[in-house]
């Protein structure tokens, strides 16, 4: 008769209680896992957005550029450095950039903007801007065409009006906003895609022309083919001003950047700021983006750059976002802490009842010769089993939800979407795949059970057999 078998049988003596206790743990574990997955997923998604549409994982900059983003804090392009950087095993590409601020205007509308001089071909390695180009737009003309289309259902037409002027970088979001389910998609979408198609052009080195963020284009009321005026301060306090044709509109998943970004071909941008061949930064595309790999890469690269340059990683460049996510993370953990505390008390209650009702049995067992240590270990095992049942069930159900969620992130629309955007977030909640946080939940629950069991164990060790027998 081994301990485990005895513990297991004891569990099913009061089936209901075991199940209720396990269910409470299941409940906590399920919530904790899904919530952690959503939190981690969202952070990762936010970071990826910021990294991929703006900073990249690692940048080489003029040492003062980050603190003072002025045109004077730039460095000359250096092919030898680029070769050395590319030779690093984790560096896939070096993307040259020239970044500055300007006042953009279109007639009476003016706005401060972020000007990014880029090499469109190299950018593909990092910020894949092409993917972010607007492909569909529910412009007033597009909506008119949709309303005239006899093959489209009324509901789609109503929704189209609701989403007037929305821009889309892919058809799935368009499909979602128009309330078309997957079954009908193949039937309806081609027509809608035709009506709402948006023609974008490219920018190329050597050819004046810009891409602007979708929100910025709305604000300045600019469309393809319109002209944007940029005014700023150039190298050594010269005046920088230029007029450019808008070739394309991009929609970045970071609303805060989307409403102020203007992409220019790198050389055109350098001309605008009289910056010769200088760069403000070299963004690096990396192979392995795990924190550890990034840190090691930064360390290796730091040795290559000159005294006037420094290497920055994405966390430093997205300090505010990291701090925001940290605060959110702590908040979530506090919430889970409360939940777990409540469950721990529930487990404690169960242990208490269990010891009280088995007091006499414990007395008998010790009377006929079972050592208290052994008794305690059976008790512990029993409670851990209850915990394990709860954890496994919770983890299982959570896994189903999470695995589904990883494939199908939650996408918000309408008013809720606006709230997300107010905080500079994309209205999308991604799940984080099953990972080490699963183990943490197990550890927490096990710890919780052990904590709950401490008191009854003390009771067992302090038990007087005669008294127990009389119970």
């Amino acid at each position, binding site marked *: *008769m081994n301990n485990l078998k005895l513990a297991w049988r004891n569990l099913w003596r009061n089936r209901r209680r075991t199940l209720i206790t396990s269910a409470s743990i299941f409940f906590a574990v399920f919530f904790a896992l899904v919530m952690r997955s959503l939190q981690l997923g969202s952070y990762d998604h936010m970071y990826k957005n910021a990294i991929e549409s703006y900073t990249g994982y690692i940048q080489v900059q003029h040492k003062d550029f980050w603190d003072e983003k002025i045109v004077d804090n730039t460095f000359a392009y250096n092919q030898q450095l680029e070769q050395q950087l590319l030779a690093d095993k984790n560096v896939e590409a070096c993307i040259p950039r020239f970044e500055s601020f300007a006042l953009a205007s279109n007639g009476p509308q003016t706005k401060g903007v972020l000007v990014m001089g880029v090499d469109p071909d190299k950018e593909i390695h990092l910020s894949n801007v092409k993917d972010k180009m607007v492909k569909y737009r529910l412009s007033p003309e597009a909506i008119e065409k949709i309303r005239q289309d006899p093959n489209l259902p009324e509901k789609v037409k109503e929704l189209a009006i609701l989403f007037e002027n929305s821009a889309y970088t892919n058809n799935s979001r368009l499909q979602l906003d128009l309330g078309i389910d997957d079954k009908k998609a193949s039937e309806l979408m081609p027509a809608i895609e035709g009506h709402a198609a948006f023609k974008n052009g490219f920018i190329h080195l050597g050819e004046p022309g810009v891409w602007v963020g979708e929100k910025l284009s709305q604000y300045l009321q600019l469309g393809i083919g319109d002209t944007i005026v940029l005014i700023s301060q150039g190298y050594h306090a010269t005046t920088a001003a230029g007029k450019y044709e808008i070739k394309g509109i991009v929609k970045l998943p970071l609303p805060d950047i989307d409403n102020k970004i203007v992409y220019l071909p790198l050389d055109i941008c350098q001309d605008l700021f009289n910056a010769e061949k200088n760069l403000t930064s070299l963004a690096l595309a990396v192979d392995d983006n795990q924190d550890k790999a990034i840190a090691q890469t930064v360390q290796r690269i730091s040795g290559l750059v000159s005294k006037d340059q420094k290497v920055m990683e994405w966390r430093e460049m997205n300090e505010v976002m990291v701090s925001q996510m940290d605060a959110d993370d702590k908040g979530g953990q506090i919430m889970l802490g409360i939940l777990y505390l409540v469950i721990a008390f529930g487990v404690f209650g169960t242990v208490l009842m269990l010891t009280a009702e088995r007091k006499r*049995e414990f007395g*008998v067992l010790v009377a*006929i*010769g*079972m050592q208290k240590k052994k008794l305690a270990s059976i008790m512990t095992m029993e409670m851990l089993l209850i915990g394990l049942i709860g954890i496994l069930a919770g983890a299982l159900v959570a896994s189903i939800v999470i695995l589904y969620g990883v494939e199908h992130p939650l996408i918000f629309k309408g008013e809720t979407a606006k709230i997300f955007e107010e905080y500079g977030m994309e209205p999308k909640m991604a799940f984080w795949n099953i990972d080490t946080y699963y183990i943490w939940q197990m550890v927490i629950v096990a710890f919780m059970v052990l904590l709950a069991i401490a008191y009854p164990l003390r009771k067992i060790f302090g038990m007087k057999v005669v008294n127990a027998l009389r119970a």
Partner: protein
Amino acid sequence: MKILEIKNVHKIYNSSEVKVHAVNDISLDFEKGEFAAIVGPSGSGKTTLLNMIGGLDTPTEGEIMVDHTNLAGLKSSALIDFRMRNIGFVFQSYNLIPVLTAKENVEFIMSLQKWNKKEKDERTYELLKAVGLEDRINSRPSKLSGGQQQRVAVARALASKPKFVLADEPTANLDSKSTETLLDIMEELNKEEGITFIFSTHDARVVKKARRVITVEDGKVISDERKK
């Protein structure tokens, strides 16, 4: 051969208001092979005395020697071990482990002593056969009658070949038919295998079967008779 000596044992309970002298200067010796009943009205100190003999409780004064070992000299875990090897218990309300079958209950102590499976099986079968339950080997206690459960308890008490078996009012919860069966089994075990039984009772029919009758009242032995 003396297997149990009780020397001037006292037990005083100092509960909040009253002081109860539950066992008042009792001295007794037991030989191997005895079949002894401790008789007395409720509250006379029988349970207290048996608990002290079994090492479940400690005397306020006096000494108890089991097979020449002073129980007072044993530390708690050593005492538990000593109990397991030397003393068998039968309780008034059976107290079998409800999640285990009859066989597993009997095997329990052998498992604690790490017997091998074959030995265990043989002895368990032997014991259950001796108490007439060889056909209920795999029943759980809840499926057995009170008398049957108490017979399993007797088998369990004998499992580790103890020096003697202590039974505190073993028949108090049984009807007369079951009482008779149980006593017959105990008597037979005593006669055939020489197992020492010390039991308490206040049932006259049980007293009749005993070969030694110790009468206690107010914590004192007032008579100690041996029958031929």
